[in-house]
């Protein structure tokens, strides 16, 4: 059966009925409009937020990052405190030798806030001693053409070199000045600037990397900071061989739990059973985000689902009323040769036309809502756009409304199809 050729007049007829009953049609559409608008707007905004969560976790080093921090001994080991050697490069070597799951290991010595000065300009920033592995573990990079990072030779020679965060550069140098090769003084020592960290841009929860040298927003802390070789930090600042922290990176998040277990076992061995360290991951943070996401989706999706359901009832109601008014028309159509299926199709198409139009209007409304929410968030947070329009989500919203319209239209259309033509023609 050439369904399309039967469908076309049905759709045309549906549009015509819509036009003839503008107010009623709009009212019956309002449920679908609200439902689709809230569904699409909410999914878009939640998706935007989830995207920001992911970026945030990524900015913290991603799910594949494990951090080992110093920790005071637990109560039952307190009397052994003087035996604790803390973390040293031996731990690094041991982990590197025994745990293949760990791809990168970044020993860090936190020197603390130090005053950097050059040609009379001064700026205090947080100085960290690290190795080349800091970059992959912290997911931060040297901008192309902006020098290099700490190298293995720097570690070996305990070189006096320094890498500056982009925010530090703007404080210490003129915009047209090339910081590379310049010598900076710190605690009376002279450090040669060999590299500049990339700028982490964006504000609020948004992070993206850019070549721009600007700094500001809530990510300023990530753009300030300076880095020197870990051995230099030990010899020239802390005066001992203890590490402040270890940053580890595993190949994938699936290895995380195994790696954490193995790292703990290895460190307990090298530390002679002293639990003077704690192992932390970003998984908990991500898990919290996931829970928030699920809660949002469930509650907002529920609201949208209910309004779509109500929209469906609205359409069914209007279709039943419309059929009641047009019993005579149904009788006439049957008398001149319409089959039950022709009338079923006609009224189903009418319901579909209402729901499709409602869905399209709803998508338009949702775009307005998302734009408004973005505007409000930009004003409140100085953050960028939180949500992007997604054609897939919109099409899903539309598909949803069509399904609702069709389901709501089946019962009224069946009633129209089943009417007895003689009875229908007698109807006043």
């Amino acid at each position, binding site marked *: 059966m050439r369904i399309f050729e039967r469908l076309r007049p049905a759709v045309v007829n549906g549009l015509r009925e819509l036009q003839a009953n503008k107010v009623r049609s709009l009212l019956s559409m309002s449920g679908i409009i609200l439902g689709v608008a809230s569904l699409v707007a909410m999914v878009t905004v939640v998706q935007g937020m989830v995207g920001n969560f992911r970026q945030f976790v990524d900015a913290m080093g991603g799910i594949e990052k494990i951090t080992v921090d110093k920790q005071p001994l637990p109560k039952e080991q307190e009397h052994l405190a003087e035996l604790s050697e803390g973390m040293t490069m031996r731990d690094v070597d041991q982990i590197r030798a025994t745990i293949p799951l760990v791809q990168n290991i970044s020993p860090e010595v936190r020197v603390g806030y130090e005053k950097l000065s050059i040609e009379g300009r001064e700026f205090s920033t947080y100085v960290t001693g690290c190795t080349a592995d800091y970059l992959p573990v912290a997911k931060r990079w040297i901008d192309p053409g902006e020098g290099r990072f700490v190298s293995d030779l720097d570690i070996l020679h305990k070189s006096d070199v320094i890498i500056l965060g982009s925010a530090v550069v703007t404080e210490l140098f003129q915009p047209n000045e090339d910081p590379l090769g310049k010598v900076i003084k710190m605690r009376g020592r002279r450090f040669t600037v060999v590299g500049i960290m990339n700028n982490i841009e964006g504000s609020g929860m948004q992070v993206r990397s850019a070549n721009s040298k600007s700094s500001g927003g809530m990510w300023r802390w990530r753009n300030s900071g300076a880095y020197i070789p870990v051995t230099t930090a030990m010899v020239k600042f802390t005066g001992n061989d203890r590490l402040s922290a270890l940053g580890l990176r595993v190949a994938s998040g699936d290895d995380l739990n195994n790696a954490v277990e193995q790292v703990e076992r290895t460190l307990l061995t090298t530390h002679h059973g002293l639990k003077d360290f704690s192992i932390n991951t970003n998984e908990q943070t991500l898990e919290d985000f996931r829970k928030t996401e699920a809660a949002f989706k469930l509650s907002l999706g529920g609201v949208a689902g209910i309004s779509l359901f109500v929209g469906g009832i609205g359409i069914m109601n209007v279709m039943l009323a419309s059929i009641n008014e047009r019993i005579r028309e149904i009788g006439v159509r049957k008398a001149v*040769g319409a089959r039950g299926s022709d009338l079923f199709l006609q009224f189903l198409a009418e319901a579909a036309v209402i729901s499709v139009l409602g869905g399209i209007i709803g998508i338009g409304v949702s775009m307005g809502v998302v734009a408004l929410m973005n505007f409000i968030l930009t004003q409140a947070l100085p953050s960028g756009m939180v949500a992007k329009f997604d054609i897939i989500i919109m099409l899903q919203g539309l598909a949803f409304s069509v399904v609702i319209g069709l389901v709501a239209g089946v019962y009224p259309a069946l009633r129209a199809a089943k009417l007895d033509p003689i009875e229908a023609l007698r109807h006043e």
Partner: protein
Amino acid sequence: MPALIAIRGLRKIYQMGDENVHALAGVNLDFNKGEFVAILGPSGSGKSTLMHILGFMDTPTEGSIVFEGQEVAGLSADRRAWYRSNRVGFVFQSFNLLPRLTVLENVALPLLYREDSKPEANEAAAKIALERVGMSHRLDHRPSQLSGGERQRVAIARAIVGMPAIIFADEPTGNLDVKNVSRILELLASLIKEGITVVLVTHDLAVADHAHRIISMREGSVQEDRQR
């Protein structure tokens, strides 16, 4: 020549509570091609039931109907719909034009439900039918913009647009003024020249008088069948 429609032993029994009502109590009739027949009778005589069954809107309880050589008494709803859109036309007392459609669309409506329906061809056929009833000048009007007589002419155009074998006119002049009554009846009478059988269903003797054959019914039976 065999009859267009041959009815034998036709019965229609309704269940009304505990009682069986015999709307048709064994009717035998033949209708020929190009006849102008009036079925005359008071309300409750079974004339409407007979028209509905012959017009494929209803099925008999018992009996045989041979339509154009085919037994059609036990057809399915969809097959009956096919006959309504292809072989039968209806003209009603209250015109029954669809108010939202234009005159042209109303007339083309029966063709819409045919398997070979094509918008352009339907429109062309509707224009010819409207010309036949003298309503070519009102193609884009709505039924509400027409007088009663004009509406009935449009309804007749709708009945003949599909080149039916037979037209049933159910009190076609009941809502018309005197001047229009004769015009419509003349129009109906003129259709037989095209080989269409016209069946006039009425309780009005004066209207039935225009037909060439009058079948009088009473209590579900044919009382008199008279050629004039």
